[in-house]
């Protein structure tokens, strides 16, 4: 298989879906003439023309609302919101117009739109927030967070074909990573976790940019003789609960890693779900979360270490749960 970068894999997914299905169109700021700030929509304008590749004014709420209307009347819009912090403007349209359309129409209509956005991880205070947890709390929305180029393509195709509104969250730290990607269009089903590392001692659940960090930590810990099982759920809604629960039943220890703020983060949901499950009886140590400790992400790199979770934090947490009891 050839390799592609994460952003190229996404671009290929869009191109192939637009080739396949003329109802698919893309819209957002700087996505047409410029090809997207992260080049995910590069070349689409030239191929599909300005009717299907639309540069919009700065109107995040308006364009998501517009996409909902287009989806309800038979199109398959893919909106780009330039970074996650901006989605704060479009929450009404996502939560009220999109998420509830199928419900209020009792299935007679539905809103098959994809909102692509990205967590930037480290930007300014106003461009570093990771807000996936909000969307998981809203019935009607699916939430997808690919961690590598292969999944990026396959999950985006699944998201576009999915009949429900999908919040598709990319990550700036991943756009340049390369990986093998099939040329043909393919789907990665929503709701199936993958296990980039298997191990018997500790389960580490991580997603998006944190999967690589967890893998690196697992590799270091292997040298210490600690077997870490890394689970990448790939989609938070639907969530592959069974896979996580089975792993914790095996290892008896769980560490959850995300870059978002710990308090109220989706890690809490994973921890709570495991604690509610049959895995409870197997837990040998408290569940640990590695996450932003509750601060805005500051601009200065000097202030990053305590704010942003890294490999050392994961290693520390794994050692802690191993040492418990």
């Amino acid at each position, binding site marked *: 298989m050839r390799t592609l970068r994460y952003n190229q894999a996404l671009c290929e997914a869009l191109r192939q879906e637009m080739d396949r299905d003329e109802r698919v169109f893309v819209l957002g700021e700087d996505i047409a003439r410029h090809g997207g700030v992260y080049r995910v929509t590069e070349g689409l304008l030239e191929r599909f023309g300005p009717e299907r590749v639309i540069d919009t004014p700065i109107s995040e709420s308006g364009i998501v609302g517009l*996409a909902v209307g287009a989806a309800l009347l038979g199109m398959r819009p893919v909106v780009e919101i330039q970074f996650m912090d901006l989605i704060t403007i479009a929450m009404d349209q996502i939560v009220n117009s999109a998420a509830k359309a199928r419900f209020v*129409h009792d299935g007679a*209509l539905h809103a098959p739109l994809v909102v692509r956005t990205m967590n930037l991880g480290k930007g300014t205070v106003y461009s570093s927030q990771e807000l996936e947890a909000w969307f998981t709390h809203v019935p009607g929305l699916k939430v997808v967070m690919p961690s590598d180029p292969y999944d990026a393509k396959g999950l985006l195709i699944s998201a576009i074909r999915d009949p429900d509104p999908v919040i598709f969250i990319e990550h700036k730290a991943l756009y340049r990573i390369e990986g093998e990607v099939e040329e043909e269009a393919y789907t990665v089903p929503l709701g199936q976790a993958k296990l980039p590392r298997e191990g018997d001692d500790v389960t580490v659940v991580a997603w998006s940019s944190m999967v690589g960090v967890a893998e690196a930590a697992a590799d270091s810990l292997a040298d210490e003789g600690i077997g870490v099982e890394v689970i990448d759920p790939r989609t938070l809604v639907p969530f592959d609960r069974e896979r996580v629960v089975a792993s914790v039943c095996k290892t008896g220890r769980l560490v959850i890693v995300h870059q978002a703020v710990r308090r109220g983060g989706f890690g809490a949901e994973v921890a709570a779900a495991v604690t509610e499950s049959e895995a409870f009886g197997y837990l040998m140590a408290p569940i640990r979360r590695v996450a932003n400790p509750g601060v805005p992400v500051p601009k200065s790199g000097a202030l990053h270490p305590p704010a942003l979770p890294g490999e050392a934090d994961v290693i520390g947490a794994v050692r802690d749960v191993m040492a418990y009891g």
Partner: protein
Amino acid sequence: MDRKDGIGGRELTTKDLVEMYRLMLQSRCFTEQVLVWYEEGRLPQGLHPSVGQEAVGVGACYGLGPDDWVIPSLRTAEAFWTRGVTMLEQLNAMLGNAASVSRGKETSHHAGYPERGILAGTGIVGGSIPVAVGGALALKMRGSEGVMVSFFGDGASNRGDFHEALNLAAVLEAPVVFVCENNLYAQTVPAAVGMAIEDIADRAMGYGMPGRVVDGQDVVAVYAATQGAVGRARRGEGPTLLECKTYRFLPHYPIFEEKRPAEEIERWRERDPIEMLGRRLEEEGLLDEQGKLEMEEAIEAELQEAIGEAEGMPMPDPQEVFENVYREPVEAMGL
């Protein structure tokens, strides 16, 4: 046939005028009766009465075709009637019974009837204006001749979504007609407190689309203005903002105390849209007192029958609440 001044639509026949009168009358009868039933505890909810504003929804929807779509505001009951929804259907929706269009999931003013070109609006005032633009864009992209009509109030025109939606519609040349029902109040806040302008139509200029003030009490004027705008949209000439000046004769919702000046209400009651058309029909010898009475009796009969039938319907199975959250059942989400 659309004239340059934005007046359009085919010539209305006697039958049309009588039917418009009937639709407005039905709306009035329905609302007044529902409010009584609500008071009596016979319905689990009231509604946002459109009494006084009937000409807007009837005039704007009359003349729309099967490919056209509308999104009513919380108060545009007339859009439902004019698009062919029955009183029984809306009563089912209000009761939330198993026969209702959403099988109890949502109520009448947020009901959608896709096969009659009605999209449900959300409860977020102004939120459906961009949705309407998207619907219009989809119609255009799919090569349909259809046009979208978006209803909202004066209050909604102060929402950011109004601004973004009208601007988007203009740049995308979406086939949409914005019908602002300016009834001079947003709940209890006078329009004059909510904005420092007289005519919301003036906002159109900021988007590069025509804006027109329309007499919202005159159903024929609303019809003609909407048809003019619909014609423009159908010909690919883009959106229009119509501001229909109107007034609700009743408070926002039954629980709200009436604090508007009595003389203001009185003044507007003199321009009752049903009476205005009724007088014309009478003067032109098209419908006399007797005809009106028979019409009202027919409506009342249908209404009484409908409530009986609606109340006789079973309620939905509680487990249905887990359906149509997603295509898959809720449990499939894993959490």
